[in-house]
């Protein structure tokens, strides 16, 4: 049961440190420079532009594989975040980046289909995922990525995931 009078800084600190633990535990996300912006339980993934992300130096454009990876990372973090939210808020778990065993196990990708809509420009990209259906064993997630305009997607994807079993 949520405590109405819980100090705000305590709430923010619990949520931010859990999110940080989830993200900083994955070396590949750190290497790509992916971070997450949190508003309540809503997450927005940010992929800051870097020269190593380029796939077509002539245009230039971000590598399609980077776009796919960014979408997949966003889907996995959103799914883990949504799955752990109740346990986090009730205090049953307290993920801590310094204690690997405290981190929830991540869902495994079964399949992932990326629809490329526009070429990725050499600038920051953003993504948000929506858990369409999450059962005990399988989940389906839709994710969208954009750059300058939220309505002009650069790519979208749907993926199926195997949830970690308790």
């Amino acid at each position, binding site marked *: 049961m949520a405590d109405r009078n819980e100090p705000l800084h305590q709430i923010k600190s619990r949520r931010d440190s859990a999110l940080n633990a989830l993200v900083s535990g994955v070396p590949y996300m750190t*290497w790509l420079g992916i971070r997450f912006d949190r508003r309540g339980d809503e997450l927005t993934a940010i992929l800051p532009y870097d020269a*190593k992300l380029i796939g077509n130096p002539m245009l230039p454009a971000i*590598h*399609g594989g980077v776009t796919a990876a960014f979408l*997949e990372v966003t889907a996995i973090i959103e799914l883990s975040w949504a799955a752990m939210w109740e346990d986090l808020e009730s205090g049953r778990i307290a993920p801590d980046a310094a204690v*690997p065993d405290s981190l929830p196990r991540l869902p495994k990708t079964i399949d992932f*289909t990326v629809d490329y809509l526009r070429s990725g420009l050499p600038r920051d990209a953003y993504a948000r995922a929506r858990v369409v259906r999450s059962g005990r064993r399988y989940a389906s997630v839709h994710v969208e990525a954009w750059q300058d305009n939220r309505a002009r997607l650069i790519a979208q994807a749907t993926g199926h995931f195997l949830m970690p079993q308790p």
Partner: protein
Amino acid sequence: MTDPADHARIAQQFIEAIPHARALGMRVDEIGQGRAVISMPWADHLVGDPRTGVIHGGVVSALMDTCCGAAVMAHPTNPRSTATIDLRIDYMRAATPGQRITARAECYHMTRSVAFLRATALDDDPDNPVASATGAFTAER
């Protein structure tokens, strides 16, 4: 005319010109006739699951996408350039930590403007693919 060794050298230069392919350490092993084989080494910073050391699925996507693109460029109809329209990846099992990952892509059908591709990703066990992919790519003339 170029012989196969020249072809592979040109393809490797093409890969080296792609910053992200270089960042992942990709190497062209075979190329020609609408087919490509590209591999890359396992590395610490590419790990997606720190508990097991298994490489992130996104890395496999990047390798498959590059390999499919290279197969389109190596098609006998010589497309001028290509871009991914869609790519679906099925992850069959976790890639074994520490082993190279090799993608093999084949352009199984080509129209004036679209190339259709199939690809698989393997580690050291050649009989048990890590992932398979199907995709549609543009073929610009």
